[in-house]
């Protein structure tokens, strides 16, 4: 059976539903959804969007956990030519409000199971959505082009407001088509990707399902947080392809007793989003010696642009390179500062409604537009790119991208906090510790708990500082700028 043609993500679903209507598209614990059912439900919801007056290129927010309904809503949005904006249900209200305002979403879908609701943000009216919603004539749906936008993913913004990365069908297709071909993904595969919808990793499972006729096996929330439960899930759900951040895999090997079992179905393990500590990666490979393991690299703005297969018998003595360019990517180094520039078919259209910020991060060389990744790299003699570090204050924690400036902005939004500086240091559990230095308006006006609670109302939990240090003054260097190096050194001494 040939793979669906073209670059339109929802057309892949239409073609797969025609080719194998009864095959399983989604498995969610005891619930299953076939390709035919998924298409029918998505077309019905797309019709509802049209009836509600939602036009192509409008935005709708999906405030949903990664459930079967969320995947229906994703394809409904794509069919209707509407840009979907994933919103993690656990995000604090202030962040959600900032994103809704930024993208101008007209609808928000939220809730779970029977309680799914569509909130019309124009009228504040709410209506129920069930899978039984009547189908719509496909002719009602608009014509979509590959260059049209598919969705917006919001990431941390250094000025204190999250920014939206706008991606086209073609950009997503470049990555998904490459993975399907390179890793030979097909109808027999059962793909798990525990990343939430708002994470670019989540394009892998959902769209490979549509393109290749594979099955997405959703990782329930009550499993996803605990390494031991995840290991059991991979085994019992007979997962064949896995894609996650390294932290999750390292946790499964370290804390999940992964080595106590074998995983005969698991043939592909992909990871991205942060550096995989080499010894932990060697330990993973030893547990699944027959699985192909590969490191994928790329920021949300370009999705994956380079990749590196973990060599057989990887001993963990050297860090793994980020590898060589994917065939659809254009990659080069800015010789002035060692920054990796990334472009090609998977490049974003830009930051939503922020042309100046987009222009500030883009550079055109020899007629090719590139995104300035902010990652410092070097090209090894063998032709692999090696990651050296960041050029700015962005960090990764458990694969989540964090601008430390956004945490400072959240701290400074409290009237009793006069100054704040945030630094990140490595901690023994192979993660990152975020420390906030805080100068209060008067001693004892706030406790550590007050500050954590204040931040918790504004920031997702992965961005919350682990340590808060009250200081009388924040170290300054020349020109009165915060001396982050000195603050980092202070932490080492504590």
């Amino acid at each position, binding site marked *: 059976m040939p793979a669906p043609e073209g670059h339109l993500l929802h057309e892949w679903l239409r073609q797969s539903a025609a080719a194998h209507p009864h095959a399983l598209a989604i498995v969610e614990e005891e619930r299953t959804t076939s390709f035919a059912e998924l298409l029918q439900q998505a077309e019905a919801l797309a019709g509802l969007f049209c009836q509600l007056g939602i036009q192509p290129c409008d935005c709708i927010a999906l405030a949903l956990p990664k459930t079967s309904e969320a995947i229906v809503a994703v394809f409904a949005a794509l069919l209707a030519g509407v840009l979907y904006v994933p919103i993690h249900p656990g995000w604090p209200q202030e962040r959600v409000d900032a994103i809704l305002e930024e993208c101008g979403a007209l609808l928000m879908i939220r809730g779970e199971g029977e309680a799914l609701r569509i909130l019309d943000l124009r009228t504040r009216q709410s209506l129920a959505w069930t899978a039984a919603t009547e189908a719509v004539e496909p002719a009602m749906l608009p014509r979509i082009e590959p260059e049209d936008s598919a969705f917006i993913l919001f990431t941390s913004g250094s000025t204190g407001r999250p920014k939206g990365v706008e991606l086209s069908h073609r950009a997503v297709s470049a990555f998904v088509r490459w993975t399907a071909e390179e890793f030979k993904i097909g109808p027999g595969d059962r793909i798990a990707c525990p990343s939430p919808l708002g994470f670019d990793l989540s394009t892998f499972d959902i769209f490979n399902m549509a393109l290749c006729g594979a099955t997405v096996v959703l990782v*329930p*929330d*009550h*499993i996803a*947080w*605990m*390494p031991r*439960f995840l290991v*059991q899930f991979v085994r019992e759900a007979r997962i064949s392809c896995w894609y996650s951040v390294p932290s999750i895999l390292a*946790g499964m090997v370290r*804390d999940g007793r992964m080595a106590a079992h074998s995983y005969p179905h698991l043939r592909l393990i992909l990871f991205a989003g942060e550096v995989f500590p080499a010894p932990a990666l060697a330990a993973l490979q030893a547990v699944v010696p027959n699985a192909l393991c590969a490191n994928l690299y790329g920021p949300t703005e370009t999705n994956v642009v380079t990749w590196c297969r973990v060599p057989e018998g990887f001993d963990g003595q050297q860090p793994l390179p980020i590898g060589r360019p994917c065939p659809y990517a254009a990659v080069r180094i800015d010789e002035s500062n060692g920054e990796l520039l990334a472009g090609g078919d998977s490049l974003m259209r830009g930051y939503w409604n922020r042309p100046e910020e987009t222009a500030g991060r883009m550079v055109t060389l020899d007629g090719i537009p590139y995104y300035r990744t902010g990652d410092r790299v070097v090209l090894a003699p063998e032709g692999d790119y090696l990651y050296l570090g960041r050029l700015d204050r962005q960090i990764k924690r*458990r694969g989540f991208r964090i601008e430390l400036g956004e945490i400072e902005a959240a701290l400074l939004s409290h009237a009793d906090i006069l100054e704040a500086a945030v630094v990140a240091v490595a901690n023994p*559990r192979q*993660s990152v510790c975020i420390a906030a230095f805080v100068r209060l308006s008067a001693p004892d006006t706030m*406790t*550590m*708990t007050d500050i*954590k*609670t204040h*931040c*918790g109302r504004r*920031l997702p*939990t*992965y961005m*919350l500082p*682990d*340590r808060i240090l009250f200081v009388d003054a924040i170290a300054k260097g020349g020109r009165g700028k915060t001396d982050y190096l000195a603050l980092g050194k202070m932490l080492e001494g504590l």
Partner: protein
Amino acid sequence: MKIRNEIREFVASQFLPDAPAATITDTMPLITSGIIDSIGMLGLVDFIESSYTIEFMPREIDVHKLDTVERIETLIRAKLSGRAEDQEQAALQ
């Protein structure tokens, strides 16, 4: 009170190093407030499982059940009484 105080001591030592354990009340949210993050939750579960010689299964624990000292105690007591029942059953068979 013993279980509650043990949990309080652990949370204070791991997540609020500069605060006395007594400042953590029985109903103070620990996870939803951001005091304990997801990695911290794993440490908390490790501590509970090893201290009381119990092992949780999926669906038995979640953010809600671990969010306050009071709920953690309820969780531990339910698991301990379940284990006692299991042992009685085993003894009868």
